[in-house]
């Protein structure tokens, strides 16, 4: 069995694997301009902050949905766990933002770990029901223990300290935006590193063919528990950000619509390549902002219409259509234009 590979094959293999993990030009295009947005739209700081938080939440869901193939309709459970942890801490005199982040992330991760054992078996439908059920349980617990959570009134009296004692959360929302963006960036780097590691690739194998993955010697249950825990922790961080930057937590953080919304974001942005969460969050929030400005009562109509269109037509065909349109522009090779966008959404639902 001691054959040796041809040097050319070995080199090609190494180059190919390095290429697939290397930073791509579009990634710089995504991250470099982001901090500047606040100077372009100073009045939109709160919207930008919400986008960063939703993006982080969506990236966390993508880790289980796009990489491990676990569907969830209850991801808000972890968002809410993070938000309430940070909120209750800040309402009781522990207002240091980084402490809140650490505690909220850890609490959500712990909850993720504890509930991960329910999603190991069963079909997509069972997982949808179980995740949804766990979130409902958490919502009612938060409602019941109103002494701690404020119940339906919400949690008032949070005092969030300045970040590192230097940057206080002001009324312009600038600090909030930079804070959320920084956490999103750090969490994203972490997630990106993770999905390109052997661990991350093994998740894709589990998603692609769980049976065969086991026959490569992969302990599929352990991998799923691990990624579910990580995903829950990151969702918790998103919840912490919302709590700290708005200095308020209500039962809304555990609501069903939040779980549905983040799934919708991934449907818009695409799963399995991490940036779908960011693109989806930007598109979703901008549309929400724009549409609710035009028709405050009926904006969900248009979001719903978009969702139906995406699912019926398929994102690939929509972006493919754009590519074909672009082919009519001078000086652009048709095939490349049509192929490029499709590379992003490899798991279009």
């Amino acid at each position, binding site marked *: *069995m001691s*054959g*040796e*590979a*041809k040097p050319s*094959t*070995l080199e*090609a*293999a*190494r180059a*190919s*694997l*390095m290429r*697939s*993990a290397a930073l791509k030009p579009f990634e710089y295009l995504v991250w470099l301009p982001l901090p500047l947005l606040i100077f372009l739209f100073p009045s939109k700081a709160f919207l930008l902050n919400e986008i960063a938080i939703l993006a982080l939440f969506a990236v966390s869901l993508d880790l289980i949905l796009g990489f491990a193939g676990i569907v969830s309709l209850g991801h808000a459970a972890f968002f809410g766990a993070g938000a309430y942890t940070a909120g209750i801490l800040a309402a009781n005199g522990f207002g240091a933002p980084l402490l809140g982040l650490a505690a909220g992330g850890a609490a959500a991760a712990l909850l993720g770990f504890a509930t991960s054992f329910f999603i190991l078996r069963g079909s997509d439908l069972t997982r949808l029901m179980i995740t949804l059920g766990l979130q409902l349980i958490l919502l009612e617990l938060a409602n019941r223990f109103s002494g701690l959570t404020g119940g339906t009134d919400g949690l008032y009296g949070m005092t969030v300290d300045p970040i590192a004692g230097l940057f206080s959360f002001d009324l312009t929302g600038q600090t909030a935006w930079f804070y959320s963006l920084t956490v999103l960036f750090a969490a994203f780097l972490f997630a990106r*590193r*993770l999905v*390109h*590691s*052997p*661990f991350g*690739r*093994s998740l*894709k*194998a589990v998603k*692609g*063919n769980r*049976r*065969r*993955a*086991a*026959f*490569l*010697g*992969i*302990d*599929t249950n*352990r*991998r799923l528990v691990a990624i579910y825990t990580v995903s829950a922790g990151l969702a918790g961080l998103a919840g912490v950000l919302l709590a700290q930057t708005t200095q308020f937590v209500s039962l809304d953080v555990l609501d069903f619509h939040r779980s549905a919304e983040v799934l919708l974001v991934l449907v818009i942005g695409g799963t399995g390549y991490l940036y779908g969460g960011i693109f989806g969050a930007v598109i979703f929030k901008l549309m929400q902002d724009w549409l609710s400005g035009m028709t405050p009562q009926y904006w969900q109509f248009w979001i719903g219409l978009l969702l139906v269109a995406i699912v019926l037509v398929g994102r690939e065909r929509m972006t493919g259509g754009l590519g074909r349109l672009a082919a009519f522009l001078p000086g652009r090779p048709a095939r490349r234009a049509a192929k490029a966008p499709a590379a992003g959404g*490899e798991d279009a639902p």
Partner: protein
Amino acid sequence: MTPVLETIDLSRRFGGLTATDHVSFSLERGARHALIGPNGAGKTTFINLLTGALRPSGGQIRLAGEDVTRLAPDRRVKRGLSRTFQINQLFPEMTPLQALALAAAEARGTGAAWFSSIAADEPALARAAELLDRFGLAEFMDEPTSRLPYGRQRLLEIALSLAGHPEVLLLDEPAAGVPEEERADILKIVAALPEEVTILLIEHDMDLVFSFAERITVMVNGAIFAAGTPAEIEADRRVREVYLGEGGDE
């Protein structure tokens, strides 16, 4: 010498049907052994029991002398028991290179690492490249598996099972569904499998069985019906009747 793989009184019932009927079977180290039998004889059920895809209703399975009857499939793989599938079980979105590198890393125990890069895992990379070369997959290394010609997918199926340097390899109908013109590639690969790997071949193709096997076990109705060298099996009138005879396709 202890057999590398052994079953003692192994049984599996599905309701009223006994798919595996008190099978005591052993595989010597380095063997080239074939398991044949008419359709529905219980060959695949037997393989599924050996690998842990199914739990037995009774009996014991020993791998290198140790009881593995209750071990999960991935644990048995870690102990050197690998298999291929009759119907390809591949990763459609991954390229052969990605899948092989992952399989090799997994066998080395680096497959669960969170922050290393698989491109920096030299032994895994070398193993993947070696298998790509050996199985004629090098030119397809960056193609998503779903786009490979069927014969190449079949080869990848075998390559994946070898990535972890298994001690025992169960080949479940490696030539199943492969078009005639690609069949020779499969036969060549099977014939050239490393000597030190113990192989149990389940196959319908009698050319392949008789050219490959040093011992043959015939299974009928979930039980061992006959066992012997290819010459003995060929000469056994009862085997000819149930299986090798004309219209013996059941």
